[in-house]
């Protein structure tokens, strides 16, 4: 007993946490196993009965989890891309080529002291980052990542997107008001003015596209653009793309429209008083926003998950592993060895200075690469959702890089210039775009 108490007293804080959490987890797992074993069938029936709910819950969970690696990847792209534009090296000590840098930043913020300044409104102060983050995450639900891969195919998906995306300004305003700090207040008010005034050109710029597509379901819009890349809406809505991208950049508070966290003017904007993970929410939400506006641009104008050209020679791969029977076992057991040896032989006979084990290691690596490539190609051909996701992510990260490029290059606009640009240029341009599209549709239909 005394041993345990002494050990407990000597545990550090993380140690205490871990030692309290682990037994609870074990107990919960055991209980879960028991439950499943005892009444597994009824649960399965219940789940099968209402599949859409299960599907939605699953999708929501996956999307929520998916935002974290997305934020890390975008953050790393930003660190490294801006570093290269500054003729710097950028992070290269943490992980291979500094790939773990943004992860460490995030985890570090998780571990920092998180406090509420005296005079702040604790409730609002605490919930503001959550709202900002959720507003970003929930918009991901309607974005189709691949054929059949979407949280929910609302037939008002686009409207839902703008409505939820507009929620983030509420969070910023709450943060600015609750921080009890003048810089934060200014930042929140700027955010409100900016986001609300850019909502209008943002929404108007896609109305023409809605007229063309005849639907507001993002999945349907993507399906309309299938085929060759000439079918993408970017070629029918060139003006709309420009307006949409600019307005979306302003929506996400990215340079040159990052007035809400302008370092050199209002210290960190609405996030001035935030520390620890509550600031981390803002920090991630920005990166998630970058990915989201890229993804939406791709979805609306650049064919979503469609390949730019249909696969020229259609291959149908019918995988029936069960047909091989015992042969499958032999295949799994033998093929790796065989491949390893096959790839090792050239090294082995190439030079006598290469020892056998070295040749075998090289062969093993090459064999694995070969297998991975094989499986990937097979998956690309066999399952169209793999191809879709691949194309979708590729296009999206191209636009993410575009945003990083803008951040590295452009200075910041002033508040009045921001407003002038929204109301004097973007709004008329989007209206013009709308009228021209409508007229064209009328002319063509007659």
């Amino acid at each position, binding site marked *: 007993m005394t041993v345990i108490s002494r050990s407990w007293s000597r545990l550090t804080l993380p140690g205490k946490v871990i030692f309290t959490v682990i037994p609870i987890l074990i107990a919960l797992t055991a209980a879960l196993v028991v439950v499943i074993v005892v009444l597994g069938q009824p649960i399965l029936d219940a789940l099968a009965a209402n599949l859409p709910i299960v599907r939605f819950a699953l999708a929501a969970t996956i999307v929520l989890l998916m935002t974290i690696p997305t934020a890390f990847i975008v953050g790393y792209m930003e660190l490294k891309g801006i570093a290269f534009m500054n003729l710097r090296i950028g992070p290269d000590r943490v992980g291979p080529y500094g790939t773990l840098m943004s992860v460490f930043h995030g985890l570090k913020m998780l571990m920092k002291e998180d406090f509420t300044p005296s005079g702040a409104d604790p409730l609002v102060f605490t919930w503001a980052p959550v709202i900002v983050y959720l507003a970003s995450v929930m918009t991901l639900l309607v974005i189709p990542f691949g054929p059949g891969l979407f949280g929910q195919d609302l037939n008002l998906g686009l409207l839902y997107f703008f409505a939820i995306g507009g929620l983030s300004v509420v969070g910023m305003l709450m943060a600015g008001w609750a921080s009890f700090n003048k810089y934060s207040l200014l930042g929140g008010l700027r955010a409100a003015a900016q986001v609300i005034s850019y909502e209008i050109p943002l929404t108007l710029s896609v109305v023409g596209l809605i007229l063309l597509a005849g639907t507001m379901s993002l999945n349907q819009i993507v399906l309309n653009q299938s085929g060759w890349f000439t079918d993408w809406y970017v070629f029918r809505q060139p003006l709309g793309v420009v307006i949409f991208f600019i307005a979306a950049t302003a929506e996400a508070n990215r340079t040159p429209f990052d007035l809400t966290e302008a370092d050199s003017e209002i*210290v960190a904007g609405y996030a001035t008083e935030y520390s620890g993970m509550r600031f981390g929410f803002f920090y991630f939400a920005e990166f998630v926003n970058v990915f989201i506006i890229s993804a939406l641009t791709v979805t609306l104008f650049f064919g979503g998950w469609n390949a730019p050209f249909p696969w020229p020679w259609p291959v149908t791969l019918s995988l029936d592993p069960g047909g091989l029977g015992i042969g499958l076992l032999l295949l799994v057991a033998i093929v790796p060895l065989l491949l390893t040896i096959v790839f090792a032989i050239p090294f082995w006979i190439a030079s006598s200075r290469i020892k056998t084990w070295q040749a075998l290691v090289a062969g093993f690596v090459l064999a694995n690469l070969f297998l991975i490539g094989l499986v990937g190609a097979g998956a690309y051909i066999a399952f169209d959702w793999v191809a879709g996701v691949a194309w979708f992510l590729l296009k999206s990260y191209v636009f993410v890089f575009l945003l990083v490029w803008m951040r590295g290059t452009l200075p910041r606009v002033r508040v009045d210039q921001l407003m002038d640009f929204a109301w004097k240029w973007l709004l008329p341009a989007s209206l013009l775009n709308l009228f021209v599209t409508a007229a064209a549709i009328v002319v063509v239909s007659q």
Partner: protein
Amino acid sequence: MTTTSAPSDDPRIELDRDLGVFEPVPPYPPRTEREAEFYTLGDGQMFINVGPQHPSTHGVLRVVLKIDGEKVVDLDPVLGYLHRGVEKLCENADYHQAICYTDPLEYVSSLFTEWSPVIAFEKLMDVQVPRRAEYIRVLSSELNRIASHALFLGWMALDLGGLTPILWSFIERDEIVDMLAALTGQRMLFNYFRIGGVNGDLNHEFMSRLGDWMSRAAEQIEAGNGLLNENEIFVRRMRGLGTIDAKTALRMVMTGPNLRASGVPFDVRRAHPYSVFPELEFDIPTRSEGDCLARYLLRMDEIKQSLRIIDQCLHQMPDGPVMAKLPRLMRPRPGRAYAAIEGPRGQLSTYAISDGTDQPFRMRIHDPSFIHLQSVGLMMPGHLIADTMAVMASLDPIMGGVDK
């Protein structure tokens, strides 16, 4: 003077007074009419305290803004957060040490802050400086001027939200500063100018670095400007901002680029020549607009002129000693001397009084940053908060020089 709750404008005491938020109103009744006028709020107005630790104030300047929404109604700079008592220290050190104390004023262009006291002391002692030393002074100080202007470019862009230009201009600055370190032995606070000459002659490393850099300096600087000069956002933000006309500039006793940007061709190198500048040929670029863009472009023109001067120095450099014969312990006979030079920010001058001992009796250092900073209050009202930073950056103050 008791240590308990002495009234002061120290933010921490303000902090304790009311929870959390910092109201920059001083806790004592106003002492001057200007203070009384400033610290009374109209309706819809509020104070916002910028600094003393703010990313955009170059150093530890504190500016109290009286704003109406985003619009700046009035502002009141509060100085002294970097006041190091240089003049008093100079009066308590002998003449060589005094030069060392003046180094960290204007720490991005230290050679100039050394130069004016050195000339003043040489006047006190009637020292004849070798011509080679004068040429070396001009050469190294013009290099320093280019480094200072390069930093100005970067800060200008940084305060407007551009990330990249400052890093590019720091590349220039590092090259120049490294070659100066090869010459003087220090990277920033080169204590290089001595009474009667310079500390050391040109060495090979410096010359090779200089030649290497001169061969590609022009297009490097052009590349740096290219980021901003054609940038629509940058130009739109700078044009017509913080305009000040020639007469007002003279009333505000502004000097240097900020005065020349208003159209007054006053340059100490020509108006009151010192050193070997009469023998060198260079233009004095002036602009008539007097706004931030003019100040920015004018400094870019000055960089070209400095390159011209460096080129001439390298060609006309005479041989000979770089240091006059002087006693180690200097006791100039009583007298007064005044020396002014043209720094990167304007006229830097020193007024030295000798009482016959080996320490200056009084040493007054006049710094242009200090003068220019007070004209922000003249330019700002009516502009936005974001413009405050742009205007301050365009005046290019160095807090070390402002606070001495």
